[in-house]
C-alpha cells in the first residue's frame, strides 16, 4: 500500500521546499515579527512601570505637600504662641516697670511728705521753743506776786502771742 510507504520523490521535494520555507521565514519572517512583538510588549511593560512610578511619585508629592502644610500650620501656631508670649511678656514687663515707677514715685512722695512733715515739725518745734522762750522771758521780766495776776498775765501773753501769730506770722 502506497499510503504508508513514503515516496522518495516527495521526500526530496518536501525537504527542499520545507528547507527553503524554513530559511526564508527564519531569516526574514519570524525574527522581525517576534522582535517587534517583544519590543512592543517590553515598551508596554516599561510604560506601565513608569506610570506606576509616576503614580507613586505623585502620591509621595501629595504626602510631602501634606507634611509641608502640617509643618506650616505647626510653625504658624508656634509663631502665634511666641507672639502672644512676647506680648504677655511685654505687658508684664511694662506692668512691672509701671509698678516699679509708681512705687518709686509713691516712695518719693512719701519721703517728701515725711521730710515736709519733719520740716513742719521742726518749724513748729522752733516756733514753740521761741514762743516758750518769749513766754519765759515775759514771765521772767515781770515779777508777779499773786497768782491772779500771774494767770492774767499768762492769759494776756498768750493772747498777745496768738494775736501776733495770726496778725504777723513769723
Amino acid at each position, binding site marked *: 500500500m502506497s499510503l504508508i510507504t513514503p515516496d522518495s520523490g516527495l521526500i526530496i521535494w518536501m*525537504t527542499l*521546499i520545507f528547507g527553503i520555507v524554513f530559511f526564508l521565514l527564519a531569516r526574514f519572517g519570524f525574527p522581525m515579527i517576534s522582535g517587534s512583538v517583544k519590543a512592543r510588549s517590553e515598551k508596554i511593560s516599561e510604560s506601565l512601570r513608569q506610570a506606576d512610578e509616576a503614580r507613586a511619585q505623585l502620591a509621595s508629592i501629595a504626602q510631602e505637600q501634606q507634611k509641608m502644610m502640617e509643618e506650616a500650620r505647626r510653625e504658624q501656631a508656634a509663631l502665634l504662641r511666641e507672639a502672644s508670649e512676647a506680648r504677655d511678656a511685654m505687658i508684664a514687663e511694662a506692668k512691672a516697670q509701671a509698678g516699679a515707677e509708681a512705687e518709686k514715685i509713691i516712695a518719693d512722695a512719701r519721703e517728701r511728705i515725711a521730710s515736709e512733715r519733719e520740716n513742719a515739725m521742726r518749724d513748729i518745734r522752733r516756733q514753740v521753743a521761741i514762743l516758750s522762750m518769749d513766754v519765759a522771758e515775759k514771765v521772767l521780766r515781770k515779777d508777779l506776786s499773786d497768782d491772779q495776776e500771774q494767770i492774767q498775765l499768762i492769759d494776756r501773753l498768750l493772747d498777745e502771742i496768738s494775736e501776733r501769730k495770726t496778725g504777723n506770722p513769723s
Partner: protein
Amino acid sequence: MKKLRLIFVALLALLPLSLRAEEEFDMQSFIFGHIGDSYEWHITEIKGKPVSIPLPVIVHSKTSGWHCFLSSKLEEGEYQGLHIAPAGSKYEGKVVETAADGSEIRPFDLSITKNVLGLMFNSLLVVVLILGCARWYRRHDALQEAPTGITGAVEMLVASITNDVIKEAVGKDYEKYAPYLLTAFFFILINNIMGIVPFFPGGANVTGNIAVTLVLAVFTFLMVNLFGNKHYYKDIFWPDVPVFLKAPLPIMPLIEILGMFTKPFSLMVRLFANMLAGHIMILCAVAIIFLTAALGPLLNGSLSLIAVLFGVFLDCLEFLVAFLQAYVFTMLSSIFIGLAHQEPEPE
C-alpha cells in the same frame, strides 16, 4: 433564509437526477483518488470527461536516463517506454518502465505530482503570509501602532505560540528555536487548512501524506539532537540507573536510543494519521450521496441532506483538528527540544 432553504432543497433534489448517468460508484478509487498522490491534478468531470491539470513527470531511469514530460502524455498508455502501473501491480499508480524480462521497474521519480504542487503552492502561501506580515513591521513602527487584519491575526498566533508553547516548553534559550517551531506551526497549519479546501489549489492531501510528515519529523529530530546538551547525551548513553542495567549489556542506553527515534516517529504518525483520517471521514460523508444514488430519489435525497449536514460538521471538526495538529506538533517538538536542554538537577 427561507429562500435559501428552498434553493438548498431544490439542489438536493436535482442531485440524484444528475447522477443517474453514473453506473456504478467505485468507493475505493473515489477515496484513494482523493487522498493519494497522482501525476495530474484532477479537478472535476464534465460530461464524463475528466478535467485535470497535467503536471510534469520527471523520472530518471537507469537504462534510458532522464525523462521529462507532461503527465497528459501518459493518458494514452506508454510514452518513452514509461507507463503508469495498472491496478494490482506492486507500484500501482506510479510511473514504471518495463524491463527486458517483462517485470516492472520503478525509475527514480522526481515528478512534480499533485502533492508536490500543493506543497509548493501552500508553502508560497506561508511565505507570502509571514513575509507580508514581516513587511508590515518593517514599514510601521510597532512601538507606535498595533497591526490590524491578517497581520494582527498572525501576530496574535506568533505571540501566543511563542509565549504559551515555546517559552514554556523549551526554556531559557527558546529564541534560538522559535523560528523553526513557528515555521513548523504555520507550515502545518496552512497545509492542513488548504487540505480541507475542496477545490483547486486546495484539496491536496499534503499533511496526510507520510513522506511530508516524515520530513517534518526528521527536522524536529535534527533540531532536538543536533543541539542537545551534555546532560541529554549522558542520560542517553549512561543514564542514572543501577550499573547492571547498562554495563555488560547496555539495555537502558538501547532503550534511550530507541526513544530518540520513537519521539519524532510518533510526531510523524500522529500528524499523518489525523489528517488522513479526517480526509477519509469527510470523503465518506460525501460518498454517501453517490452510494445511495441507486436507492431512488427519495432515500437518496434525504440521505444526502444528512450527508451534507454531517459533512458540514466534519469540516468544522477538521478545521479544529487542522489547528490542533499544528499546535500539537509544535508543542511536542518544543517539549522534545526542551528535554534535550534540561540542566542536571542539583543533588
